[in-house]
């Protein structure tokens, strides 16, 4: 019974790879998308609105398929086997960046106008005003919704099965089918839960570290 554990662990490694790479790229990428979405330029804002709408309005699973097969079916480009994990990371990162962009926007828009005005009168440039005064306050405000997304991301990694990537849930299903037992699926579920518990714990700690002001 216990021999399937290494297989699930190798799947867990793949899951963690998707998870961390997606966070590394999508958290910062959300910011420029957010700026575009808030731009006074109607064209730029329009592009961001459409992109966000498509990314949020279609299944992530479908987006992963498009990223993986798109280069070949649309442009006829043949890519090597590395493209599988690359396309997964691109698909996840861009999809999550769209959600983060909207969370950041809500955070920025919730900062009182007086903060901007005080900074402007004191002579801060637009860039300094954002990075010194608005951004740090925004981070505190967006942490709870960002935590939500991060937890969802861990579970969403299982969608990578759609391009035949051997992440944890795919491995668990394979073992379950081969051994005709449901136990591997529960073991995978337990891994997801433990990992999410850790993530929630860490993010809550970070959230608390901002409690020194209100």
């Amino acid at each position: 019974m216990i021999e399937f554990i290494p297989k699930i662990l190798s799947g867990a490694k793949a899951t963690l790879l998707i998870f961390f790479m997606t966070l590394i790229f999508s958290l910062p990428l959300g910011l420029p998308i957010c700026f575009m979405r808030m731009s006074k330029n109607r064209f730029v804002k329009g592009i961001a609105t459409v992109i966000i709408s498509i990314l949020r309005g279609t299944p992530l699973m479908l987006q992963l398929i498009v990223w993986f097969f798109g280069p070949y079916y649309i442009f006829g480009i043949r890519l090597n086997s590395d493209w599988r994990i690359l396309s997964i990371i691109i698909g996840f990162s861009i999809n999550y960046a769209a959600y983060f962009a909207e969370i950041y926007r809500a955070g920025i828009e919730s900062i009182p106008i007086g903060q901007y005005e005080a900074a402007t009168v004191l002579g801060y440039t637009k860039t300094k005003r954002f990075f010194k005064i608005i951004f740090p306050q925004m981070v505190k405000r967006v942490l709870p919704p960002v935590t939500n997304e991060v937890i969802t991301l861990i579970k969403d990694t299982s969608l990578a099965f759609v391009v035949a990537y051997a992440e944890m849930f795919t491995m668990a299903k394979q073992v379950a089918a081969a051994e005709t037992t449901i136990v591997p699926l529960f073991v995978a579920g337990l891994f997801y839960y433990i990992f999410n518990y850790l993530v929630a714990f860490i993010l809550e700690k970070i959230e608390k570290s901002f409690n020194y002001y209100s």
Partner: protein
Amino acid sequence: MNIFEIKNCKKSFDGIKVIDDISFNVKEGEVLAIIGSSGSGKTTLLRICTFLQYMDDGEMSYLGEKIVTSDNGASRYIGQNELSIDALNNNKELIKIKSNFGLVFQNFNLFPHWTVLRNVMDAPISVEKRDKDEVEASAMKYLKKMGLETKAMRYPCELSGGQQQRVAIARALCLEPKIIYFDEPTSALDPELTGEILKVIKDLANENKTMVIVTHEMNFARDVADRAIFVDNGVIVEEGDAHELITNPKMERTKKFLQKYN
């Protein structure tokens, strides 16, 4: 010498005239009180003086330097071609001029994520590129003057409203402005805390600081200001010696307004 001068200032919002041809100046060491009912255009006027809002037409100068000129019925700001708040915010030339004035807001607008000391110190260091040690000494001097030297390492949320407003005044002073604007500095405070802020402003007046104060505290304006202007419906109805204007107004509208305070 005129520290500040504004001439024929006009401002409308969506076709509604908020300021209709207002002119006044502020001399060095003078305290000017601006009084008037809510919605009379006082705050808009102050926002125009501090570049938070642009005027549609008129002229403005700081220390004799023309910042805004009137050109074919529209105002023209130095360093920008377009009339918009964005253009004002992005105007690099105005940043230098902003160091001439400070603004104290009705609801303080301190930066909540910074300590009291950093609130006071950051702009002189990061905007004016002054020496950190020199700025820290200066910031502590102003905090001491405000009776807040023991609160330097506290955060704004740990202070009372009156203390927060005193930090805001120290923040404005630390940039060594030539003129300080106060936009109803006591309107968010209870009567007890109002007293402590008014005392601080009175002390500044005794040191011959140049100030423009928008206020509803008539007794305070009468005793502390040198001159007063009464604004109603976007025009100056009456102006003159503060004590005279408030105790013995000439115009009917001024009398009617001041009656509400007695």
